[in-house]
């Protein structure tokens, strides 16, 4: 035990650190890179589990798989404090306006993962169901689709890492808001 005082540069740090002497260093990087690096490694997700996928999502957050290792540090019960919504479960017609409202209440930048068959396409409820929305992307724009019924925690983690990779390609010069034109079907 003990505090490690030797400064180490994270392996994935986007840029160069030049030792400046006297304990001060010089960072050489671009704003895009450093902001995306920060965003991608601090994605707080909203509690949104509507059916059995939520159990698997909890398992992904629990000790064995522990998504906070990748910066998905905590889940937030308020959309105002969340960057990410993992749609873990079936969306029914009655739930759709609620999901849309939660999404609209989240602050930019915001991301969406559709977890499991129901959130992707309605899953087993695709046929002969009067109540199930055939895919959450009818309601809000989705960034990453994680297939499975339910997906294993490894699959969800893979989807989350893919979202991080996607965030790292963003640029401040041409910002994209997924909701723009979404309702018009663009």
């Amino acid at each position, binding site marked *: 035990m003990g505090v490690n005082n030797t400064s180490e540069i994270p392996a994935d740090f986007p840029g160069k650190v030049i030792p400046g002497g006297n304990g001060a260093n010089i960072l050489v990087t671009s704003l895009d890179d450093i902001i995306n690096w920060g965003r991608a490694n601090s994605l707080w997700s909203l509690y949104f589990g509507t059916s059995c996928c939520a159990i698997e999502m909890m398992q992904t957050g629990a000790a064995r798989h522990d998504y906070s290792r990748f910066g998905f540090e905590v889940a937030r019960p308020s959309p105002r404090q969340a960057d990410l919504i993992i749609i873990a479960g079936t969306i029914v*017609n009655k739930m759709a306006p609620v999901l849309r409202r939660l999404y609209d209440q989240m602050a930019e930048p915001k991301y969406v993962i559709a977890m499991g068959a129901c959130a992707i396409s309605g899953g087993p409820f*695709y*046929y*002969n*169901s*009067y*109540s199930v929305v*055939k895919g959450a992307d009818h309601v809000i724009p989705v960034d990453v689709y994680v297939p499975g019924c339910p997906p294993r925690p490894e699959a969800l983690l893979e989807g989350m890492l893919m979202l991080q990779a996607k965030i790292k390609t963003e640029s401040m010069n041409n910002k994209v808001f997924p909701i723009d034109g979404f309702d018009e079907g663009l």
Partner: protein
Amino acid sequence: MTNEALQNLISSWIPDPIAIGLEFTEEKSQFLNITVQPEQLHQLMTQLKNNPDTKFDYLFCLSGVDWGKELGVVYHLESTTHRHQLVVKVKTEDRENPTFDTVCTIWRTAEFHEREVFDFFGIQFTNHPNLKRLFLTEEWDGFPLRKDYVDEINMIIK
């Protein structure tokens, strides 16, 4: 009480069970199944609850069923003192205006269950205190769990 003893006891309450359409069966079921005519339902249920030998004081399941031709309700009963169970079925071929007597005066829990059955199957329960939509919206048209329900917007038929 065993299923056989239950059947004998219940038959003995009614002078001519076949004439009023009372049927017993244990086929494909762990329970004794009784099919009863809608007119006899309330009286039989009251007797099942109040008779000290049967004393079915617990309605543990109430479900609506669409058999294609008939609409009906299935009641699963249990006695917490005797620990025996029984299934009562009631059917009607009237799909326009299916009506049964409520059992929520016998088992209070049926109040919500019957609202659910009304919501999804459109079965009316006479003397129910508050029969209105439970899960669906008030303006919903039709009864979605009926076999002949059509919804061209939301349903993809396979």
